[in-house]
């Protein structure tokens, strides 16, 4: 029954969005984590999303449509988390305990404004997936009442 697939699809979307929210939280929490060298400084983390193809889940079952070479999709997955390679902020703070010999500390390359926008976007996307799941649920509940009354 393909209605059941919708739960998996919406569930995968919710998992991906909550992971994105998780990285946003981590980035914002560490936005002011200063350190003395470029190697140890926190860098903004971003999840990379990729679509799951159904052919990947069960390779023996080829796509049912002639025109669709990959078959229908089956949700979204997080391929990995990458660290942003944007430039770190160097600030002159000689009184900072972590300052190096020249008196500089390195601040993470987290753009808080961008993170806030990302947070709103991911929470909206999460809501959207919840909506989809609720609708699929009511569709399924209706089908169970078929032929009654």
């Amino acid at each position, binding site marked *: 029954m393909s209605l059941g697939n919708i739960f998996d699809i919406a569930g995968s979307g919710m998992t991906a969005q909550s992971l994105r929210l998780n990285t946003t939280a981590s980035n914002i929490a560490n936005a002011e984590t200063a350190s003395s060298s470029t190697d140890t400084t926190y860098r903004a983390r971003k999840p990379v999303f990729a679509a799951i193809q159904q052919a990947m889940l069960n390779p023996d079952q080829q796509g049912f449509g002639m025109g669709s070479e990959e078959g229908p999709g089956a949700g979204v997955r997080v391929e990995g988390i990458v660290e942003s390679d944007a430039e770190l902020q160097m600030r002159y703070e000689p009184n900072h305990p972590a300052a190096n010999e020249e008196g500089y500390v390195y601040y993470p390359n987290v753009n808080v404004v961008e993170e806030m926008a990302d947070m709103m976007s991911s929470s909206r996307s999460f809501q959207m997936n919840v909506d989809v799941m609720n*609708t699929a649920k009511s569709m399924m509940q209706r089908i169970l009442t078929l*032929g009654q009354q």
Partner: protein
Amino acid sequence: MAITFDKALGIHEHALQARVKRAEVLANNLANADTPGYKARDVDFQAMMQKAQDSMTGFGMTTTHSGHMDTSSPGADGELLYRTPHQPSIDGNTVDAQAEQTRFMRNAMDYQASFQFLSSRFSGLTKALKGE
């Protein structure tokens, strides 16, 4: 004249199946609203219905020779087609989340309508069997 389920239920059974399939495709679009490079897809509901209707009424063109061409429109077998984006984003994603959600809701409503028709067919059959 025997009553068969195939004839009694009419087109609504096909419609319901097509609606479920479309819901799945649209849900997948929504789940991938933030996936870079993902292309939004959809099924051609009208073509699917046309095909179901042709096969039910028997007015559809049949191919009896290997040289005969398929006259049904593309997408009649429920193949996934790609959507033409209005505002493609810079990462190659063509999902318009609001438009997709509207389509999903509309599809759910149409599903309920099809369901209602199917359900009343069943209650009609029940009435006929009971002879009330």
